[in-house]
């Protein structure tokens, strides 16, 4: 479902650009609005959320899927934690569909999916780990959670199109996003957001051309 947001970027309290292949880590407070903007189009944004106060509580793909009885995310989708608590609600979306099943690319999974020698290409899970290794540079609150590899649960891929057929097929298709499309969420608890702006070059998730995104936060 497509729905625009009334919020004006001029009033955002955070407005940062994250280049392709870079991590972004930030605490978002309950009641704040958080927008991910696809600046140039067709860019997968691998995103995880953690409770800002409890490192054991995080976004859960399966809890979110089961509670909404549907695979894709759009306006009205509620992002649930592994403890069954509501973390964020999607309140605006000009793209229309976001993926819950594709997870993050990784050096190791690239060897399986493409070729053994693709291991040394940059990947989202390497990007997550690199970001977490320098977590304190990004966000002091996030650093206190002490997140590591065990916390890299299946993530949301904003702007990524991974259709599942009634016969059980699953494919990575060309993106349905475009330049200037965005998705916006309201935080329902204090959360830490961990993003990898996807560097994948081997499939159409980024249109074979990874590009920058913008992250915006409003107090209301």
């Amino acid at each position: 479902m497509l729905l625009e947001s009334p919020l004006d970027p001029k009033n955002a309290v955070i407005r940062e650009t994250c280049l392709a292949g870079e991590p972004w880590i930030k605490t978002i407070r309950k009641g704040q609005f958080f927008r991910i903007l696809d600046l140039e189009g067709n860019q997968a944004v691998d995103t995880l959320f953690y409770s800002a106060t409890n490192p054991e509580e995080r976004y859960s793909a399966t809890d979110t899927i089961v509670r909404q009885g549907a695979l894709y995310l759009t306006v009205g989708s509620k992002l649930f934690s592994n403890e069954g608590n509501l973390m964020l609600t999607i309140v605006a979306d000009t793209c229309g569909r976001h993926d819950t099943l594709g997870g993050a690319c990784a050096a190791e999974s690239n060897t399986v999916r493409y070729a053994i020698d693709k291991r040394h290409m940059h990947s989202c899970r390497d990007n997550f780990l690199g970001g977490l290794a320098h977590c304190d540079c990004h966000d002091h609150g996030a650093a206190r959670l002490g997140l590591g590899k065990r916390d890299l649960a299946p993530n949301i891929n904003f702007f990524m199109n991974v259709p599942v057929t009634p016969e059980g097929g699953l494919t990575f298709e060309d993106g349905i996003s475009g330049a200037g499309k965005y998705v916006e969420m309201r935080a329902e608890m204090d959360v830490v957001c961990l993003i990898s702006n996807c560097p994948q070059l081997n499939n159409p998730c980024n249109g074979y051309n990874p590009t920058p995104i913008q992250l915006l936060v409003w107090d209301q």
Partner: protein
Amino acid sequence: MTTNIPSEKLRWEHVVPAGTHWSGMIRRGTVLRFTDIEGGANCSLMLFNPEDKLERYNMPDTLKAQHTALLSRGHCLYSDMGRIFASIVEDTLGWHDSFCGVSDAAMVKARYGDSHYQQAQNAMLRNGRDSLLIELGKYGLGPRDLGPTINLFSKVVADGEGRLAHVADHSQAGSHVDLRFEMNTLLCLSTAPHPLNASTTYAAHPVRLTAYAAEPVSADDYCRNFRPENQRGFINTERYVG
């Protein structure tokens, strides 16, 4: 297709009662047959590498490597390290759920009411999440280590909009699926009902585990050649176990 297990290959059998949980080490070269004794079972699996428990079953890597949302014969169950814990060498059902995870305490209480040991004793209604957390806890693992499960015997289909429907009566009595373990694997499982099972009663059923010796993986092995990705997954696994 059903292979009869020759008695000289049989290692052990164990029945996991309805709605309970189990864990154990399954060695490389073992096939574990899961049998739905009564029909209607659900068996939720988590897999870890006992040498490095940070290596665990990875749902997205498994699905995208094989371009599938369902799991059946030919599919391999991948770790996050590009290796194969187990391959599905036999399956009488054709569909096992990969993306719904397990029930939790609030869900089971809301549907079926309060159930405590004090009144119900070992018939208490266990939920999938707490069951798996108990088994994970035996190996020093906890909530941060619990991820999506493989839900054997369950089928959930998506329509064109991604809306899900749990298929009741998918698994009949006697249906089975065989996992051939390609790495030593710590297996944790729960037989609590599937989280989207709409039954108004707690519809749990027992699952029989039958362990038997695997044949060596041949060059023309069905799972290895099911997809080119699986050939590379086997290479990664052989480099590790070799």
